[in-house]
């Protein structure tokens, strides 16, 4: 997905009539940028919804295929046994604010980095459960994308408010 570059208000300080026009154009650009971000957000939410629906369907299929042969997941979820997470969220600065990046670490059992699906469900995990696990991992990536788009959207809205206050200081801004 492309990341449209948001215009910054820091370099635009309205001092003359032409500066006011420039500020107005900047305001228009910011509004357009918001519409692009809203469009991206809707697409991402739809993708996430589709991916989670497919993953839930596969889990239902596992329930049909395995029946009572699989042990209840609640009994298998690790409890009071620490293990190292494979995914780390790292914040990265951007011109308009910060985004989060998802860093995935390699599975290394000797160092305590275990694969969740086999760590929880045992050695003989059915193929469909592995497929569902991969789909959920893709969902996590999409959630991070949604969060970043939301952050950029909030930053753009804040920028618009700031610009409006500086352009129309006497106007009551919400």
């Amino acid at each position, binding site marked *: 997905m492309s990341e449209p570059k948001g215009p910054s208000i820091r370099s635009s300080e309205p001092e003359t009539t032409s500066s006011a026009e420039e500020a107005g154009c900047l305001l228009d650009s910011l509004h357009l940028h918001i519409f692009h971000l809203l469009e991206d957000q809707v697409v991402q939410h739809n993708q996430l919804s589709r991916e989670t*629906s497919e993953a*839930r*369907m*596969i889990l*239902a*299929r596992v*329930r*049909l*295929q*395995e*029946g*009572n*042969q699989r*042990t*209840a997941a*609640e*009994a*298998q*979820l*690790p*409890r*009071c*046994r620490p293990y190292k997470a494979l995914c780390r969220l790292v914040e990265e600065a951007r011109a308009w604010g910060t985004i989060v990046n998802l860093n995935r670490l390699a599975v290394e059992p000797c160092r305590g980095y275990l694969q969740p699906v*086999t760590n929880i*469900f*045992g*050695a*003989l*995990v*059915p*193929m*469909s459960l*592995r*497929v569902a696990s991969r789909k959920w991992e893709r969902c996590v990536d999409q959630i991070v994308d949604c969060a970043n788009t939301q952050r950029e959207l909030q930053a753009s809205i804040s920028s618009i408010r700031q610009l409006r206050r500086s352009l129309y200081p006497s106007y009551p801004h919400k």
Partner: protein
Amino acid sequence: MSLLFNTEWGFLEGIVRGFKNGMLKHSDYLALTQCDSIEDVMMSIQGTDYGNIFANDRKFSVDLIEKRLGEKLLHEFNYIRAHSTEPLSSFLEYIRYPYMIDNVSLLISGLNNNRPMKRLLEMCNPLGYFDQLAAIEVAVSSVELFNAVLIDTPLAKFIPPEFHEDTFGEIDVEIVRGLLYRSYLESYYAFCQGLGGTTSDVMCKLLSFEADRRVITITVNALPTNLTPNDRLKMYPTCGQLPDLALRTLSEIVDYERVRDMCNFAGYGDMFENIERDTDGLIGLEDRFLMLEAKNNVYSYLQQFHFGVFYSYVKLKQLEVRNIIWICECIAQRQTDKVNAYIPIPLE
């Protein structure tokens, strides 16, 4: 044998054939797939042979439906078991052993994860309850579970001799389950062979299919893991139609295509066909095995005066419960385009 069979077990065979005739037909499945909500499904189920099983329930959920359907099967099974005599009683106990193995696996997993025993016992399958299960409450670790329970329970005869209490807690639960299940299946096969007659013919065919299915499923599931060929071979039941050479070869295979080639050679090639043409990606190898298992169990009713009808009824009824739960899940998740992907049971 036919005359002797009817004097002892004719009534029970008649009962189980009646139960089988009450299973859902194609028209019942059509009605279920056209429901809009879980409540509609529950109303439709009450119009079938299941009867008014939701009379006292006010909350509607998929888990509740599964629980009530399971209770109905348990009630029917207990009725047959209570009226049975030897060797049918032992035969029916063999039907319960896999559920006992599942319950014990659940307890091992739960104890290893510090779950409270009372909560674990609530999750156990009622078909797999045994007297000593109540005494398991005293066990707080898998070592105590091994000492206090497994040795004195009906599953004791299935524990491999190399199992030791010290290593018991370190072995993966699924491998423990695999080893117990192999011992169970081979013991069941030998028991049915000893019964002789039509029971032996029907049950040995069903159990050898189950053994082959276990071998192929374990091989496919173990492909992306670090299980050694020896670990895999220990879990393979030997009472199937796959020869020993095929079992040794499958234990060493690390590639899915080679599994397919070996199954082609052994006569199970059809299991792997058409899977790529399934555009939704829902129909897998396990579904193919379930369809063939359903067909084999329905065929067992074509012969009379044998115990196989009891085994087949339990298997078919469980498949029916799973089909209903699949339909409920599709309706609950609003994905009704996939609601017809249940496993067909060719009763008609």
